[in-house]
């Protein structure tokens, strides 16, 4: 447990020290949301209808930057081998990194919500629920994302491989998060929010367990 806490502290500290990049990634996400408006046209009704989709597409595209960055320090300075020599297990390293990535993506998602409100006139009174969905979705992106980021940081063509590997896997996260967000924005007359939230939770549980189990094999020598 203490290994996990120490590793988490290390990763959060790393993220704090590179916070300039966080701002850059946020700018990228906001720009993406703007581009979606240009692609679809200035019809306010259409934009509002698809606002949830745009938000999550923007977050998904930005996640490749965040996730790839998360192993940049380890890859650049060969720190991974050093870390693995410590008594801390690879599993603790994985969960710490995945947790740090989740928080980073959730913060990014929360930051993009005002952009969504302004550009698409899509707000919701249920803010805690929206933040909850953003957190669950970010966790879903981070679990396989962290594992594949570790893998591709050591391979060639890493910038192409990470989204190529990750995007098909997180289709359920995209579907569920977009649906849940749309229900929060437009109303939920048939009480479907619970089902989509459950899907997100199931995805998260399965992948946080499975990827934690397999991470050791990915970084072993």
């Amino acid at each position: 447990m203490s290994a996990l806490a120490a590793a988490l502290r290390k990763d959060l500290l790393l993220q704090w020290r590179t916070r300039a990049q966080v701002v850059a990634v946020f700018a990228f996400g906001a720009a993406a949301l703007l581009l979606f408006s240009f692609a679809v046209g200035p019809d306010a009704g259409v934009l509002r209808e698809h606002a949830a989709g745009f938000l999550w597409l923007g977050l998904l595209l930005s996640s490749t930057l965040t996730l790839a960055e998360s192993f940049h320090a380890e890859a650049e300075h060969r720190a991974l081998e050093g870390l693995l020599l410590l008594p801390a297990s690879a599993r603790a390293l994985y969960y710490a990194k995945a947790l740090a990535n989740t928080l980073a993506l959730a913060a990014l998602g929360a930051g993009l919500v005002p952009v969504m409100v302004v550009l698409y006139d899509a707000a919701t009174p249920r803010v805690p629920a929206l933040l909850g969905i953003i957190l669950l979705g970010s966790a879903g992106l981070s679990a396989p994302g962290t594992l594949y980021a570790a893998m591709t940081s050591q391979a060639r063509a890493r910038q192409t491989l990470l989204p190529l590997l990750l995007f098909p896997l997180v289709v359920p996260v995209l579907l569920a998060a977009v649906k849940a967000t749309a229900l929060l924005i437009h109303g939920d007359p048939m009480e479907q929010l619970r089902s989509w939230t459950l899907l997100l939770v199931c995805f998260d549980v399965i992948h946080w367990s499975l990827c934690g189990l397999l991470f050791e094999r990915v970084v072993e020598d």
Partner: protein
Amino acid sequence: MKDDRLPYSLLGLGVALLLWGSYWGLFRAPAEAYMGDVQRIMYVHVPTAWNAMLALTFAFACALLSLLRGQAVWDARLEGALEVGVTLSALLCMQGAIWAKPTWGVWWDWDPRLTTTAVLVFAFGAILALRQFVDDPVKRATWAAVAVIIAYVDVPIVYFSVKWWNSLHQAQSTPETVSRAFHWPLRINAFGMLFLMSGLISLRARLALLRHEDETAPPLPEPALRTAGAARGAR
């Protein structure tokens, strides 16, 4: 050296059965009541579906064995099963589109099974791409196996999420039931494709194993290489 008669026989048998089953399904089986002649596509579409899933399931088994046993032969079979599985899945999507156009009027109707297959093509195709960009054979084997396991576990989740996502818009069910009288062409084609697939995976795995041996063989000095080549050729 290895005797290749088994995979080639499987290929030949598979092709023969497919030709027979397709002839039957195209020319001898009667047209279906509502679907008309378009139904005949099922005689090749359903076997492709079964065998695509079978190939990817075999890939999953190879991935587990590759991680647990660490033998190169399982990684070779994984590579074969992946390539064949992705090819069959891509073919499945094409067949599905050709079937959907006369049936629903659109090339893609977001049927959960076909949509999941499309996601699979990308998911497992990406793993084939991953293999191309990793030079160390041990890492390549381990990472490919890990990726296949994660992707395969994801398959049911993708299927259910697409199903729920689509059910909110269309309450259509895909009429893919084939009535009893038409089972024979389907069964023949199913077995034909099974043998074809097995033969292809076997050959592709042997190719992968040969390449792996080349990769991991220690370098020989030039004169030894020449005599070794001559000795092998004379055998």
